């Protein structure tokens, strides 16, 4: 709760920077305040209190605290990526405030207890990103990205609203616990409530880019400025997914689980489409867009499995943490070295450290031990196999993971490939410490999976 206020206040402060001319310090201020937000989350974790402020509109319990801390931590890392990108000479006040507002939206998405808060969170997360996607002024691609994102985002919002309205029609409440109570009490759901639930879920599929609602994502990722893509593909997507998870786990869970089959179809379709599309990509941003879709599908499998809470939650934390870390690490490299795959031939010779970090991030995305990515994929598989879901879904997921491994490893092969021409200039010792930090974090989590994957024991 305090963290949310700190972040919003930070955003407002960033706006004031323009007036009172302290733009120079805004990066440091943001950094410190985000750390303070993390600290306040830690404090709240130590002092749990069982009250829901604002008529139960929002609630920061243990789970929400952990998830929001993950988002905040990822944003802190992202700040450095943004600073490293030579897109903007200074850390613009408008940019930082927009990102902070988006982060606040992300926090709302983790902590919502009410569909109104959910909707506002979705919008608060999306609107700054529409703008930021288009913020590369001289690039038509960037404009196209912003526009596409806006139109499709608005479409998703419309579906979300329609779904919420239909749900309200049945449950007569926006409160997710009340809705759950209503759903539990109903032996047979009226069709329009079912429709509402499905529309809500489809809207989320749009937001987290699940096939067949994923078409925007490669284009938007490609067009948007690199650092913004990094934010969209990590923090924004993860935050949306937290909301997705919460809605399905708190609100829509048993007894009415007719929607699982739909999500299952989407997940399978995403796994197949995303991984096959990623194979032919020449640009890393597009590649990561497709790989992101595939990761979304894996995350979706957690929801589909509908298993014991603790395990699902731990898997969610583990998966999103490793996904964000590896994504941010990879983008920390991309921000400096561009996104054309062929430019990375022999990259290891020029930047041995960066190549190492990049490889670890890619290995984690691929799910190779002993990175964090392995445990996250592994937990998904455990969840999936222990559920009543057909074993063929697991088999498809395995095949998809394999295709994923193929293109990640191909990329690593590219990094370490022996190019015909000798490396230009001396070996750079570029201090890409963000990527290195991410890589080390991934390895550490891989060595101590208990640290993230065992937080909750309900």
């Amino acid at each position, binding site marked *: 709760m305090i963290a949310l206020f700190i972040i*919003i206040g930070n*955003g407002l402060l960033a706006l004031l920077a323009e007036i009172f001319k302290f733009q120079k310090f805004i990066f440091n201020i943001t950094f410190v305040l985000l750390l303070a937000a993390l600290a306040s989350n830690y404090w709240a974790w130590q002092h749990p209190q069982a009250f829901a402020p604002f*008529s139960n*509109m929002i609630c920061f319990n243990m789970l929400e605290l952990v998830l929001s801390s993950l988002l905040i931590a990822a944003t802190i890392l992202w700040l450095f990526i943004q600073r490293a990108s030579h897109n903007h000479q200074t850390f613009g006040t408008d940019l930082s405030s*927009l990102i902070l*507002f988006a982060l606040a*939206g992300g926090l709302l998405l983790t902590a919502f207890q009410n569909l*109104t808060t959910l909707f506002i969170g979705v919008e608060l997360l999306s609107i700054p990103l529409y703008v930021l996607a288009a913020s590369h002024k001289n690039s038509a691609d960037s404009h196209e990205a912003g526009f596409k994102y806006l139109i499709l985002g608005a479409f998703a919002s419309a579906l979300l609203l329609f779904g919420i309205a239909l749900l309200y*029609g049945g449950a007569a409440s926006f409160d997710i616990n009340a809705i759950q109570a209503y759903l539990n009490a109903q032996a047979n759901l009226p*069709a329009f409530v079912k429709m509402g639930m499905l529309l809500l879920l489809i809207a989320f599929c749009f937001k987290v880019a699940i096939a067949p609602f994923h078409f925007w994502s490669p284009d938007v990722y490609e067009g948007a400025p690199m650092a913004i893509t990094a934010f969209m593909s990590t923090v924004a997507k993860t935050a949306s997914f937290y909301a997705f998870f919460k809605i399905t786990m708190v609100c829509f869970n048993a007894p009415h689980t007719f929607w699982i089959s739909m999500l299952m179809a989407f997940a399978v379709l995403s796994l197949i489409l995303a991984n096959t599309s990623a194979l032919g990509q020449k640009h890393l941003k597009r590649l990561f867009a497709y790989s992101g879709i595939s990761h979304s599908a894996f995350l979706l499998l957690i929801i589909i499995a509908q298993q014991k809470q603790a395990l699902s939650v731990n898997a969610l934390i583990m998966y999103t943490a490793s996904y964000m870390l590896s994504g941010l690490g990879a983008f920390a490299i991309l921000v400096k070295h561009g996104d054309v795959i062929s430019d990375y031939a022999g990259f290891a010779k020029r930047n041995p450290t960066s190549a190492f970090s990049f490889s670890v991030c890619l290995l984690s995305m691929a799910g190779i031990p002993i990175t964090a990515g392995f445990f996250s994929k592994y937990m998904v598989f455990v969840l999936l196999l222990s559920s009543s879901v057909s074993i063929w879904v697991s088999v498809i997921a395995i095949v998809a993971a394999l295709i994923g491994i193929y293109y990640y490893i191909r990329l690593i092969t590219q990094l370490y490939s022996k190019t015909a021409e000798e490396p230009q200039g001396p070996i750079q010792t570029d201090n890409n410490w963000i990527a290195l930090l991410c890589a080390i974090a991934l390895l550490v989590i891989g060595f101590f999976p208990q640290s993230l994957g065992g937080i909750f024991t309900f």
Partner: protein
Amino acid sequence: MNLLGYSLHQWVFGVLSFITIVFALMVVFSRNPVNSVLYLVLTFFGIAGHYLLLNAQFLAIVHIAVYAGAIMVLFLFVIMLMNLNADDEPQKTMSSKIIAGVLGGLLLFVIVGVLRQTAQILPQTQGAADIGLVKTLGMVLFNEFLFPFEIISILLLAALVGAIMIGKRETTESKL
């Protein structure tokens, strides 16, 4: 007051809905963007009518004042300034039109099919008579929904900052 078995309320609702939908369709089908905007204004009036039917006068008026009165005027303003013509609009191929039509039709079919069933279900909450009054609305807004209400201000601020960010001239350009 019954006519053909439907109450006046239902008749008004039907007519309003019909008008609204027709205008909404015209928004999409109209070639001329100015006409589109004007049809959209009319659609908003239709929706405001629905608010009135629901006894929500405040919302109805605000809807007109804000959407029809302010936002759409800005739309019109921009369209007029940019002098958009029907020719500028890229034409879709026939096949994409057909596909879009089929998909949209399917969605419509599903929604209509689903909502047809709701006719038999009584609404769970009968709105209170004073539900649309400013006072009632204010009480709800500032008690139960205080948090979303306040956060919306952040949302609007974010949108504002975003609009300025898009609109402002890049500093490097002015140097050139």
